[in-house]
């Protein structure tokens, strides 16, 4: 008997989920197909994008950074989007879709808290009950975001199972969905999970790349030579890459968290580099590249940034890496912190630690000649949320 080809990117993707969730995925797929090209849906989504989220976000020519590294460096300012990160692009789209589907309740998982905040924002705005699952360890690391979500009327539920981080929050959100599938939409925060989630989230995030295309043509009169984006689950990366996928003259760099080093212990990796050195496996509903032990137990991941701290990666990114369309790279915690300071000091922009990985790769690769002349970096979020953890890290040095 042949396996289904539905939702596959090469050998990756698919629908490896409990039977109880299959009808919900089918319903979501059908609803998305029904509404995604519907003028009323598009009009409403565009209204929220412009007047509520603040789109389009600027493409900013980083003059001093460009001078320092000898490239023309442009920053896609997703840090200026309402909520402080690109996450709202996805939550707006999915929550609106859920509303069209007649769902009244949103649940979400969150790592750094950015996706939780972005879900709480749309939940409040659209009048939907919102519950966010968050690893207890992450809640400690990101207290301000927990308070933000609560302020926005969401209930934050601590997850104390497993490693108490993002992957466990996803497990718990899936368990909730299994029990409440009839009135609840699981608003997944990245291009992960079973079909149709990786495609839906990619489509909603592609607004980033579509804007970049128009903006860089206006400012440079040409397309960029390379695009750099940090990659955890990979939603900001595929969002900015996707419209350029067919143009193979543009190099696409997916920068993963190198953490404290590229090694692993028995139960945990010291990094989150599933694209770079992960193996084929099944996690959270999809076949993709994952960090696992020789038996297939999932390894905990590690990164200075909670938003990249994930043992898997979106299945389409795994495929694009396999066919060598994107170039997976890493930046270590140390390189990331240096980039975090650098952008703050020379451009007056405090980047999220996640986005600082992409900036760190600019510093690493600037002399190697692989970036070309015009470089676009996805500045996926702002760093205000990270100040407390950076302060703590640097006090412990």
């Amino acid at each position, binding site marked *: *008997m*042949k*396996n*289904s080809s*539905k939702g596959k990117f090469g050998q990756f993707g*698919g*629908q*490896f*989920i*409990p*039977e*109880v969730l*299959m*009808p*919900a995925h089918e319903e979501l797929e059908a609803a998305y197909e029904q509404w995604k090209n519907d003028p009323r849906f598009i009009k409403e989504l565009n209204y929220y994008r412009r007047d509520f989220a603040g789109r389009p976000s600027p493409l900013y020519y980083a003059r001093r950074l460009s001078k320092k590294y000898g490239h023309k460096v442009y920053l896609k300012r997703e840090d200026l989007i309402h909520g402080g990160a690109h996450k709202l692009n996805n939550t707006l789209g999915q929550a609106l879709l859920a509303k069209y589907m007649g769902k009244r309740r949103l649940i979400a998982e969150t790592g750094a808290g950015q996706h939780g905040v972005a879900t709480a924002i749309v939940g409040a705005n659209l009048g939907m009950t919102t519950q966010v699952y968050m690893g207890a360890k992450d809640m400690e690391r990101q207290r301000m975001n927990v308070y933000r979500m609560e302020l926005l009327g969401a209930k934050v539920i601590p997850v104390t*199972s*497993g490693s108490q981080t993002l*992957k*466990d929050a996803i*497990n718990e959100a*899936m*368990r909730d969905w*299994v*029990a*409440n*599938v*009839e009135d609840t939409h699981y608003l997944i925060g990245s291009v992960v999970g079973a079909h149709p989630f990786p495609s839906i989230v990619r489509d909603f995030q592609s607004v980033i790349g579509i804007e970049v295309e128009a903006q860089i043509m206006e400012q440079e009169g040409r397309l960029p030579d390379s695009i750099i984006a940090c990659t955890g689950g990979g939603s900001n990366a595929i969002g900015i890459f996707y419209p350029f996928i067919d143009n193979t003259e543009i190099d696409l760099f997916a920068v993963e968290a190198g953490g404290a080093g590229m090694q692993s212990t028995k139960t945990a990796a010291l990094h989150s580099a599933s694209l770079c050195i992960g193996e*084929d*496996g*099944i*996690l*959270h*509903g999809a*076949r993709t590249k*994952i960090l*696992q032990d*020789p*038996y*297939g*137990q*999932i390894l905990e991941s590690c990164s200075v940034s909670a938003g990249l701290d994930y043992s898997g990666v979106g299945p389409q990114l795994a495929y694009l890496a396999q066919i060598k369309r994107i170039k997976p790279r890493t930046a270590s915690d140390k390189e990331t912190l240096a980039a975090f300071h650098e952008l703050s000091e020379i451009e007056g922009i405090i980047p999220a630690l996640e986005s600082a990985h992409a900036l760190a790769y600019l510093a690493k690769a600037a002399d190697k000649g692989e970036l070309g002349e015009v470089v676009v970096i996805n500045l996926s979020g702002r760093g205000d949320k990270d100040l407390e953890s950076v302060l703590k890290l640097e006090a412990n040095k």
Partner: protein
Amino acid sequence: MRIADKFNELTRRDEGAMIAYVCAGDGDTPGIVHTLVNAGADIVELGLPFSDPVAEGPTIQASIQRALENGMNTDRYFAMVKDLDVNIPLLVMTYYNLIFKRGLKKFTADCRDSGITGIIVPDLSMEESGDLEDCCIDNEIDLIYLVTPVTKGERLDSIISRSSGFIYLVSRLGVTGARDDVASSTNELINRVKTDIPKAVGFGISSKEQAVEIRKGGADGVIVGSALVDIIGSGKDVTKRLDALVRQIKSGLK
């Protein structure tokens, strides 16, 4: 022993099947399995613990975590199962990544060699199960499919047509965990699943009363997991209490 042989035997005796789940590596598993069988368990589902068990409630999650901390892994699992001396169908319940990582052919051959005759994979949908189904057929193993209160229409028909051994009816929306009632959706589900293949109801079964009601509703067996795992997790009078619970539930199926 093949699952069908066991159900044929039970049909002749006009009994429902008491199917017991425990997680391998949590407690003295060989001792626990013998206790279950001696008390009247007809089939034992032996969990192979996975780090990210999305279909499990807190009780079984904790059991899986203990098992992993005790060093249970796929090699040790098959070695242990091979040494079990029981004459009932033994099934493995695990998540797909562990099967995928070992290789579908090797995993199913290991099942056959160690005496396992059924596989339950709660995170493997019908869409993705074709490859494993082929390997199961090659090794004379039943791949058990789950159906739920939201599985309907053509989808239900397809799953039934691909099932062998028994069909696992998930009695309610939600994860595993002991309850003391029978969900109203259960009888409706039993009636909706029209097939000659035996039907076993799981998720939330913990008492004789529930077993009686489910048997009366037309099911051929019940699956009991969390209620047994609760006893193992408590560490108190484990053998005695497991024995008593299995006997009690089995008495409701006769």
